[in-house]
């Protein structure tokens, strides 16, 4: 996990010389986001099958008005940040047991880092 953080921070600092398979890469992250897009909107739009992710950074989990969250998500008492999203996406049921997102997670750390880069760039 830590390694992926370093990679992604390197990219944000403007270090883009690594090959695409190695460097954290928001363009690749956008492709990874396809796994989320059937349920989650990345644009300013109402929630769909899943809650809208627009403005997710800094939001308290389970608090969006137009989405019916699971009790587990409402009780989670976390604020979405790069770190909390990273651990949630890695293994959603481990991070917040009994949440209702029907998704097994993204096991590959590099893919998660790229995805979060994309999300940070898009939502911030």
């Amino acid at each position: 996990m830590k390694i992926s953080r370093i990679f992604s921070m390197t990219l944000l600092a403007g270090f883009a010389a690594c090959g695409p398979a190695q460097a954290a890469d928001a363009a690749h992250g956008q492709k990874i986001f396809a796994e989320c897009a059937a349920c989650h909107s990345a644009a300013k739009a109402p929630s769909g099958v899943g809650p809208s992710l627009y403005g997710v950074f800094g939001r308290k989990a389970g608090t969006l008005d137009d989405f019916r969250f699971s009790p587990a998500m409402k009780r989670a008492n976390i604020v979405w940040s790069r770190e909390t999203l990273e651990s949630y996406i890695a293994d959603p049921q481990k991070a917040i047991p009994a949440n209702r997102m029907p998704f097994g997670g993204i096991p590959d750390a590099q893919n998660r880092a790229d995805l979060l880069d994309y999300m940070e760039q898009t939502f911030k």
Partner: protein
Amino acid sequence: MAKKLKEVDVVIVGLGWTGGILSKELTDAGLKVVALERGGNRTTQDDYALPGVRDELRYVVRHDLMQNTARDTLTVRNNISQEALPMRRLGSFLPGEVVGGSGVHWSGHTWRWTDMELKVRSMYEERYGKKYIPADMTIQDWGVSYAELEPYYEKFERAAAVSGKAGNLRGQIQEGGNPFEAPRQNEYALPPLTKIHASEMFNAAAKNLGYHPFPRPSANASRPYTNQYGAQFGACEYCGYCQRFGCEANAKGSPHVAIIPAVMKSANFELRAHSWVTRVIKDKSGKRVTGVLYINVLTGEEFEQPANMVILTAFALNNVHIMLTSGIGQPYDPKTGKGVIGKNYCYQTGTSATLFFEGKHFNPFMNAGGSNDTIDDFNTNWDFDRSKFGYIGGANISGGFNTNLPIGYRPVPRGTPQWGREWKAATAKWYQAAMKIDASGAVMANRYNYLDLDPTYRNAFGQPLMRMTFDYKENEHKMGQHAAQVINDIAKSMNPTHFTPAVARTDPWTVVPYQSTHNTGGTIMGVNPKSSAVNRYLQSWDCHNLFVVGANVFAHNSSYNPTGPVGALAYWTADAIRNQYLKNPGQLVHA
């Protein structure tokens, strides 16, 4: 008295796959389209989301997405000497009643039917001689060829996010695909699903016996996917709740995900849910239709919706019923063989074996609707010599399982008591350790299997129920015996701890338990108005501005699931309307 509404260009009766496809194609052509759907409008976020969707009692036992038999059902009998009785609870087949139709609750199995079906009579006569086809087997060519339908199959597969592996790309046999499929121009929209362990075992056993296993093509997205209408699919999560359920992850190719949202954006389109069409109205000449009568089932109000064109896109059986209640086309009479509406009703047959492997953990709760492997060596393989077994058609044989639900799925070896302590111990022991090998077999049309209006029983709207007269004939019995033999040979070669062998059915067909929702025929397509209800473009021979789309046009049934050709024929019909009919309204085929 029905309230008469303002005329529209097209009225679509039933909004599932075929209604969705026709609505999209015809609104794109600039026509004003109204779709009338019996059921309500349900969406993934409001209705199929977790946790509510994983409710076995609601969806499987109480049929929440299906037709309500208290309002309308069929009467059923095995032969014309019997009195038909109403099917008061759904059982053998499950027509959907919701926006999206049966496309919401299907498993997603999507096949391309080949010329072996579309040209069934000519191909069998050529290979086996005219006498090979029994006198009462009323099979006939469909009037369309695989080559003509190929682009439309592909269009449907791309719309529905079908995952699979091509076995024949432009004539080149492909490793890992079905070598007996007809040539495809392109690969599937998505690569095959991940195999479950039971399917891997079946695959190895089938290969070992010299057969040609391949992954079942299915509208379960193996990867995230965006179709030609911009619909976004998530990747299948192998949650095990496929058949009977709406997909919680938008990973199943269902009309309410794949195409209807795109239609809804059109200003030319209007959906009226809870609208039950009772009749298509003909003009005085009897050669044109002028609209439909329908009832709002929430308020009881009756409306007349005038339209320039009527397209019946309801479930196959309901399309036939509407044709009969509307008096369009001559009803079929099995005694004389004359008439066409109700003719060549077909169903499917099948048999299966259950294999138990002590100590195995198959994880039966984890699978996609189509994560099974399958063989077509005794199905679309034309080199397989049927004359040794004396039947026509074939059976697709598959190994694995899907939708094994926590309450209903209780495999136990033969001889286990059906209740009590021993049963409990056996169900705990074998739950993880069982898999199946299934055959799905074709049913050939028979002179005495047909649909007509019941003389006695009526539905909630006072209309006669449709009467189904159906039983399996000698052809199905012979095929079932052969398929059971093949299954049992594969099963034995896998060396299971216990195995419940496949047995060919010889008992009469009954409406219980669930068997298959693949009801076909009743308004069949063909080349001649004397022997078919609609022409090769699914246009009524009687009324040129009426099209009847669905499995009801199949001239017989194959072993395959019907949705592939149902979708392809919907696109084919849409194309004929857009490029031929609109330019020159009238009969597209002169026979």
